[in-house]
């Protein structure tokens, strides 16, 4: 696999390019990640069926599918943690938010969020100050000094999100980020995520087993089955995620996804 800063534009005529959401502000959406017939096999086992996927700057792609179908593997391939057995991957540097947050329980929310900055070589004081600002922006004002072991599930997800955002990378890879939080918190976090992605024009690939969540958050959906990945048509782009569900496309899309998963 190769990671490039300035990937070649998608090959003309591919179905993904046609499905890219049309945003008037950026007439030629740039591609931040692209998979072409990428597969991962380990011996006889197929960890990832062949997948074609293009992620454009600023869009949210949700990946839905049953357990064990390769959703996490797909994220790891995009993150550059795993090389595909066959096929091609080009991707900008991406920030992974793993399942179950991956926070250091003994460290404070501030130090956890500051980890990417410290790895990038920032002095501790600067990194902490930046982390504190990011935590404030995610609704964790005043909790920066608390150990993450003593935070609630929803608060921990916010810290993990802060850490992911602070990487500064334009593609976020979110592995079931809201699976462990209650429904109300999940709604809040959805709004928060969309607000931040929108404000900074970053793209995200979101793995979820929750079709509802996928339809609500995503510009496009990738339904991953044992056979292959199938890209669903774009959800109509509306200002608020709540509107998407209400939109005509939302309901029928949801039905289509469920039908696809049931096969």
């Amino acid at each position, binding site marked *: 696999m190769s990671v490039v800063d300035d990937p070649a534009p998608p090959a003309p005529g591919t179905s993904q390019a046609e499905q890219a959401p049309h945003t008037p502000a950026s007439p030629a959406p740039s591609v931040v990640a692209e998979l072409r017939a990428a597969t991962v096999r380990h011996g006889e086992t197929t960890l990832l069926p062949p997948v074609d996927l293009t992620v454009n700057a600023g869009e949210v792609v949700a990946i839905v599918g049953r357990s064990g179908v390769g959703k996490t593997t797909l994220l790891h391939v995009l993150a550059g943690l795993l090389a595909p057995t066959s096929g091609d991957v080009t991707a900008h540097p991406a920030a992974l938010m793993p399942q179950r*947050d991956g926070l250091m329980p*003994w460290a*404070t929310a501030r130090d956890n969020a500051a980890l990417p900055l410290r790895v990038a070589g920032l002095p501790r004081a600067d990194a902490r100050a930046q982390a504190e600002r990011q935590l404030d922006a995610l609704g964790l004002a005043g909790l920066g000094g608390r150990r993450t072991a003593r935070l609630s599930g929803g608060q921990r997800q916010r810290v993990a999100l802060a850490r992911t955002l602070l*990487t500064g990378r334009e593609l976020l890879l979110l592995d079931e980020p809201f699976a462990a939080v209650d429904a109300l918190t999940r709604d809040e976090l959805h709004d928060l995520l969309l607000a931040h992605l929108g404000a900074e024009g970053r793209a995200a690939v979101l793995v979820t087993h929750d079709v509802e969540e996928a339809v609500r958050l995503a510009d496009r959906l990738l339904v991953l089955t044992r056979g292959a990945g199938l890209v669903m048509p774009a959800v109509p782009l509306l200002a608020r995620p709540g509107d998407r569900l209400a939109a005509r496309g939302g309901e029928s899309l949801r039905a289509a996804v469920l039908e696809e998963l049931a096969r």
Partner: protein
Amino acid sequence: MSTRIPTRRAAGPAASRTGRLLSWLAPLLTVGGLIALWQGYVRWHEVDPIVLPAPTDVANALWRDRELLLTATEHTLLVLLLGLVAALALGTLCGIALHRSPALRRALEPLLVGSQAVPIPILAPLLVVWLGFGLTPQLVLVVVVAFFPVAVATRDALAGLSPETALVLRNLGATPAQRLRLVELPGALPGILTGVRLAVVFAVIGAVFADATGQSATTAADPTSSGGLGRIVADAVPQLQTDRAFAAIVLLVALSLALFWSLGGVERRLDRRSSPSLPI
């Protein structure tokens, strides 16, 4: 439903103050009671003080031989502190190496465990033969016995890193040095300290044996030369000065407890601190 369930916190600060008092009082009472029993037994049965001196005899010896005991305590404390610092450094490095390289782990494990199986009373005189009299064999013995718990604790604590955090670090492109400095060592610090606390107990035993075998030839003429508390015990028993031997043992116990407790204090302080991290 207005029944109140009594909880510890509900009892208020007064209760917690009594609790704290009790936590101090309890060990004092057990130790005090034991000393009283001992005193009573020796006085009641008129036991020969050469066989078993009464606590008052021991207290008397503590005062009578205070200069001798003080220099010996200083010597033992020096050996202990130097040995523990060396054991901490070597043990941590060894733990990191064991954690990093499975091949190294397989290669070193028999040596490490083997080093602990060698009985100290046999190793001590051998070290004197190899390294001569003086501080060196004593330090080596303390390090040999104390570094093992530190190394094992370090290795185990480092292995406690969650696979998800490891994924994040790989994704961030952290170097092995960054991984160690920013994540692994700060997370392992409490575990390493527990290892050091265990090591204190072993180190005291090592120091006493090293001392006891170390310098009999030189200290026979001048007992105040440079022996530690182990030397005093070893010399006092054949000289039928059992009270002095007991006084030295009391000091050894006090030394171990002081070291053990102050390390416990460091651990608690670290735990209270918002976030353990290395001063880099």
